[in-house]
């Protein structure tokens, strides 16, 4: 085999940006689906449900996160539960539209990290939360909204803002 036929693929190779479009649209739709049972007629009972669900998951919770849940999240469920619902709706809409995608994706990843820590392991079994976290990181790093999303306009107009 001659040396000329050898091509070197760089260690940090690159992929076309359109590869992230499917992932971005799915994550956006899934966040809206997840938020759908927290808004509307469920808006009032949702804080109580969230506190109850956290209590039911506490035996599985990752140990260092348990104190945060019992000391901060459960006592302030009246504020945090609606905040979580609003954040999920906002993240879902932004990801679907490709608007401020990097910010939306990283907020979505941080939200999902909280659910992951609350529900605990084993993480190697089929689980949607790590997919959302790793997918959010991919969407954020790749600025996926610039492909077929509103961020394409924003990036043209304001190329230096890292939010898109």
């Amino acid at each position: 085999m001659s040396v000329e036929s050898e091509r070197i693929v760089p260690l940090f190779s690159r992929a076309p940006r359109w590869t992230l479009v499917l992932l971005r649209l799915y994550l956006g739709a899934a966040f809206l689906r997840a938020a759908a049972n927290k808004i509307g007629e469920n808006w009032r009972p949702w804080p109580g449900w969230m506190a109850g669900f956290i209590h039911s998951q506490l035996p599985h919770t990752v140990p260092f996160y348990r104190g945060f849940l019992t000391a901060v999240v459960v006592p302030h469920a009246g504020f945090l539960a609606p905040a979580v619902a609003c954040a999920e709706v906002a993240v879902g809409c932004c990801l679907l539209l490709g608007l401020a995608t990097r910010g939306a994706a990283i907020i979505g990843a941080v939200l999902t990290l909280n659910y992951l820590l609350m529900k605990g392991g084993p993480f190697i079994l089929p689980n949607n939360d790590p997919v959302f976290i790793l997918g959010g990181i991919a969407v954020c790093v790749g600025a996926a909204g610039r492909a077929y999303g509103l961020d394409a306009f924003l990036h043209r107009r304001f190329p230096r803002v890292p939010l898109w």
Partner: protein
Amino acid sequence: MGFLLDSGADTIPRWPLAGLRIYGGLVFCGASLAELMGRQAWPVPPNAALDPPAVLVLELLVGVALVLGAVSRAAALIGVALMAGRLIAAGLKPADLVSPGPNTAITILLLTVMLGRAGRVWGVDRLLAARWPRNPLW
């Protein structure tokens, strides 16, 4: 407006896709080992039977190939077929395509690995791609 239609043409770093690929591979390995030891791993209808051993071995091979990043597009395609079979057996509804549940999430992960040729970063496919850059299997 026209530039929006071809705005997908520029490039992104590929390494975040390696994280998705390796996690997907670990899940396939873990789920198939759990089922080989007689424990249901995927969300299925209540009292559904375990998958036949041939399917579980195929699942394990897909998982190993994804973790190593070897022939990863072919592995991801087989994985999508396995997941599609599982979704259809559970009664696929249009709403399932955007469901936040594990079955759909892993399917989308595999499709992203396939589209982005995720094995070419931090995987065996990088060596294969240097020799045969145009092969669609990696």
